[in-house]
């Protein structure tokens, strides 16, 4: 008997009328077709599992009053240098834990540990991004205290990390002035999801043809919901606004 519609032989319905299997749309999981194969309607998001785990991470973080930031950029844009300075400048004010994502090495986690942070390193091997499972396990290993900040430094890559929700509260994207002003329009998926864009290495502007106004105008198109802050982690220029951004979003101690 047909498991879906209950007909006796796959072609005759309960009411005695003849019907076709194999092509008609049906509810999720509806199976149609008999001899020669069945079509099973799934209507399922490909990343449903990642998204569900990311939602669990988000709930876990929120329940503990922890601010999680997913920090993304191309390789070499200055994520780790920014975090080193941030950790040193805000020591005693904010507790910052770091989840480091790199294909290989523990170089960045060594730097962040030297800056006074608790760190968990994830090496993705051939993987080009972090996902919600990796972050769930890293959070368990990191054990961040209530009211702290967790910065997830994603694998340096302006393409792949954009697709994977990790459970963060905010996405922060770095665009360094040495990369050129056209990166937001060249990598719109990444910049579209940003809540904050930090234009980094601004101390080098005087050596470059980087057009900050054009970059800011492009960011208004690619990232309409994002604040844009030019910063230099080397000189500290503009960095106070980044700290204010973090302070405003860090839950009050409970």
């Amino acid at each position, binding site marked *: 008997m047909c498991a879906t519609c209950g007909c006796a032989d796959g072609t005759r319905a309960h009411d005695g009328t003849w019907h076709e299997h194999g092509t008609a749309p049906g509810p999720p999981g509806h199976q149609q077709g008999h001899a020669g194969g069945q079509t099973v309607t799934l209507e399922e998001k490909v990343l449903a599992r990642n998204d569900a785990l990311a939602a669990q991470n988000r709930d876990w973080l929120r329940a503990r009053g922890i601010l999680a930031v997913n920090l993304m950029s191309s390789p070499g844009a200055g994520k780790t240098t920014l975090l080193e300075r941030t950790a040193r400048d805000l020591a005693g004010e904010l507790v910052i834990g770091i989840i480091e994502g790199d294909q290989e090495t523990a170089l960045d986690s060594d730097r962040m540990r030297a800056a006074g942070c608790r760190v968990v390193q994830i090496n993705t091997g051939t993987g080009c991004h972090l*996902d919600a499972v990796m972050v769930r396990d890293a959070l368990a290993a990191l054990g961040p205290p209530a009211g702290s900040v967790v910065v997830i430094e994603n694998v340096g890559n302006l393409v792949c990390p954009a*697709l994977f929700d990790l459970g963060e509260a905010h996405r922060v994207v770095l665009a360094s002035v040495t990369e050129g002003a056209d990166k937001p329009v060249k990598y*719109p998926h990444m910049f579209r999801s940003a809540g904050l864009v930090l234009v980094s290495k601004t101390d080098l502007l005087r050596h470059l043809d980087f057009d900050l106004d054009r970059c800011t105008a492009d960011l208004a198109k690619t990232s*309409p919901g994002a604040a844009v802050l030019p910063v230099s982690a080397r000189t500290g220029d503009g960095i106070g606004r980044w700290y204010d951004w973090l302070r405003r979003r860090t839950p009050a101690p409970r």
Partner: protein
Amino acid sequence: MHELAIAESVVDAITEQLPGATVTCVHLEIGALSGVVPDSIRFCFDLATEGTGLAGARLEITEPPAQCRCRACGAGFQPDSPVVLCPCGSPDVVVLSGEQLKIVSVQVA
């Protein structure tokens, strides 16, 4: 190359839903704003399905265009680029569809 991870997620999701099934065709929907390149998925699919119940399955991909609505002028439009701008020039738009990345259906033997 996140498309390999995406192709593996397709295999995992189908295997979880239909354990032990021999899948002969997979129908995906990849929206224009999903951030996934259909040709790259096609490239990775055989690799991701090797040794699974999906090995040798045919891959059909539907690529629906994006649908947006402008908050500034209220117009509905289909963006012609991943930088989503209304023809009126406003970037303040709602993406109604086009970000979907889903498994529509499969055929099993």
